[in-house]
């Protein structure tokens, strides 16, 4: 790889632009896609690699190529700058998530409590608009306060987020679903919410609860059976 190509790849990653590094095997000829000058079969294969988020070999005509998909990191929005969030944010960052903590209560959402994490003190509906969740986003609400959790869940349900989790007991969750139904969400939508949040590992401490939440997010992302919700 030439240093110029590496610099271009690193610039794309820094700007969170999805790109594919295509390498012809075994001679190592390379190009960075998307590129208007690329032949159509290569461009299509690269687009597919990004969509499927899979790196791997492809055969195009007589040529063997390795397509290395560089998608931006998955993202996690944590609503509620609470104690569990303090454990969850660094653990999620360690798993490669870009983490945003949302809490309009300025006393909670401080960089002292969340070093190195993106913090927003906007109201959750506005903060979620700015966060703009997509298919590579997870959203977890932790405030226990309907005034804060509900607008975030409302926005999450209107997005393509791959994971939505809400902290709270079964009783709290039932009340929450009732309120979200009143906002017009149907059962299929509401079934996307993991609540009570996290895999059942009998978590007690904040880091243990954070671990159970992240384990569930990973299970859902990777399509593991234990990430599927039990029938209500």
């Amino acid at each position, binding site marked *: 790889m030439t240093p110029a190509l590496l610099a271009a790849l690193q610039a794309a990653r820094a700007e969170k632009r999805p790109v594919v590094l295509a390498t012809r095997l075994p001679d*190592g000829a390379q190009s960075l896609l998307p590129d208007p000058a690329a032949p159509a079969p290569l461009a299509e294969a690269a687009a597919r690699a990004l969509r499927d988020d899979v*790196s791997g070999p492809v055969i195009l005509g007589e040529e063997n190529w390795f397509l290395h998909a560089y998608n931006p990191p998955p993202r996690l929005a944590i609503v509620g700058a609470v104690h569990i969030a303090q454990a969850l944010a660094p653990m999620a960052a360690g798993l490669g998530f870009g983490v945003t903590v949302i809490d309009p209560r300025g006393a909670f959402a401080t960089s002292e409590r969340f070093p190195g994490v993106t913090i927003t003190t906007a109201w959750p509906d506005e903060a979620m608009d700015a966060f703009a969740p997509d298919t*590579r986003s997870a959203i977890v609400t932790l405030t226990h306060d309907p005034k804060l959790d509900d607008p975030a869940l409302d926005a999450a349900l209107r997005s393509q987020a791959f994971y939505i989790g809400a902290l709270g007991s079964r009783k709290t969750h039932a009340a929450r679903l009732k309120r979200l139904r009143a906002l017009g969400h149907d059962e299929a939508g509401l079934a996307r919410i993991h609540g009570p949040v996290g895999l059942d590992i009998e978590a007690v401490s904040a880091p243990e609860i954070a671990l159970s939440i992240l384990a569930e997010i990973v299970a859902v992302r990777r399509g593991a059976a234990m990430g599927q919700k039990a029938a209500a």
Partner: protein
Amino acid sequence: MNQIEQVEDVLAIAEAWRAAGETVALATVTETWGSSPRPAGSQMAITASGRMAGSVSGGCIEGAVAEAARETMTSGVPRLLDFGVTHERAWEVGLACGGKVKVFVEALA
């Protein structure tokens, strides 16, 4: 979704090493079969001076990959390495897990 989040940013490390005047090669897993430990796209950076970052297996083939990388740094010719337990005895190493991997080695130059 199979994007792998690396423990280290191997490309950034490789770039920094080169900027510091090191001769650098990159190794990338291009294809896997069976129970190989790291998915396609896993990377390792190696310098002529012996520094290593990242990984392409659970530690089984890194030594052999580093050796091939040093040859590529000298020759400038990229190589596609084949590792497995069932065939290809050209290499002294293999994967104890029974998987197979292909690793592409190229100079950063």
